[in-house]
């Protein structure tokens, strides 16, 4: 699932990623912009996805990304991998990893490297 949490309408990146995952043979649920972490967690569970990719360009990732992980865990879905991307300064990486985000991709990351990460790290049930 590709999701955009928070008040950030810059979804070009998320859409390109969704398309690129499609071309890699994945089934991709795209939930659109302006989603709350609650909406994202609920959707991920309803769709029973393997991985949630969060995209955030507004700077609110420190609050929004960990919240998604927290909600999934609360609902007994802590096994769903959450990764993130966007404008994320390097000093925030450790905080995000500690909160349970499994990978972070920033501008310059190649599409192939993101697909590759998922293929390597996500095992279907």
């Amino acid at each position, binding site marked *: 699932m590709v999701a955009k949490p928070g008040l950030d309408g810059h979804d070009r990146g998320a859409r390109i990623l*969704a*398309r690129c*995952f*499609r*071309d*890699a*043979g*994945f*089934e*991709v*649920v*795209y*939930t*659109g912009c302006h*989603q*709350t972490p*609650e*909406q994202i967690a*609920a*959707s991920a*569970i*309803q*769709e*029973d996805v393997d991985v949630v990719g969060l995209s955030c360009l507004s700077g609110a990732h420190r609050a929004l990304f960990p919240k998604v992980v927290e909600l999934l865990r609360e*609902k*007994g*879905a802590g096994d769903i991998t959450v990764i993130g991307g966007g404008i994320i300064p390097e000093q925030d990486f450790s905080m995000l990893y500690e909160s349970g985000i499994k990978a972070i991709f920033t501008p310059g990351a190649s599409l192939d490297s993101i697909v590759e990460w998922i293929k390597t790290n996500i095992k279907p*049930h």
Partner: protein
Amino acid sequence: MDTTIKKICAGDIRTASRLIRDIEDKLPDAKAKIKKLYTHTGKSFIIGITGAPGAGKSTLTDALISEFRKMNKTVGVLAVDPTSPFTGGAILGDRIRMQRHAEDTGVFVRSLATRGALGGLSQAAGNAIHVMEAMGKDIIIVETVGIGQQEIDIINHAHTVLVVLVPGMGDEIQTMKAGLMEIADVFVINKADRAGARQLQTELSSMLNLSPKTADGWKPPIVMVGNAFEPATFNQNTAELAQKIGDHRLYLQQSGQLTERMHRKAMTEIKDALTSCLMEPVMHSLVTDGELEKIAEKIKNRKSDPYTVAEEITEKFFQKQAKK
């Protein structure tokens, strides 16, 4: 009772969603679960929404969810989008329009990719409906993939079928054609604020006046639905749509048509189950032992023909079954 079945009957979304995935992936265990689940199914009212890509099916589904929630009904939605014939990938984008209901525990939206099915649904749709039925959903809305004229599998699964049309898609002859135009229980002319909507309404009405369906007491109503960005009229229109769906449900119950539709559904389910019990194991073994490639080679070189080959395979399959 099996814990999975118990959880699903109690409405547990995570368990239900996982079973739907296992059904999609055709895991043998999923079939066993469906067997146990089956007695808990058949109580929901199932609405099919179909129409061309971009006609507004997801937006209408979203509006109908709101209408049914106002009536205190729980709602399940199955939203189907197409799978790429080249990569097997899919963009499932229907739920974007329904995200305001994401946190409502009375609403469960699940996307499905067609995975090669050509009838406008996914092969998993029938059983996914059963899972939602077992969860106790009052209403299940099945939104087909954006379709053309002929992908009408939805009639084998839904009680009431909505066909969503938009103005500007062709002349009167289009309304006369077989297939899609015959399956509607309720017509929606969506984006009715656009040029050509009235003309389409006139053409549809005159088509319906000739339809033999009117003889048995139900004439598909035509509901005009305006611009979704003008909430006042849009909400009024979609409330009317919900009303017409309710009317059709009542008609089905009172006319005995419901029994007929359930019979059609049973036939489809038997056919699907037979395909899965006969066709799939045959294909599976042909693929895994490499036999399929050899056969294809034989046919390509005109050493044999498809019918002889199929007869040989069938005979072998039944011999093997008999030994078992």
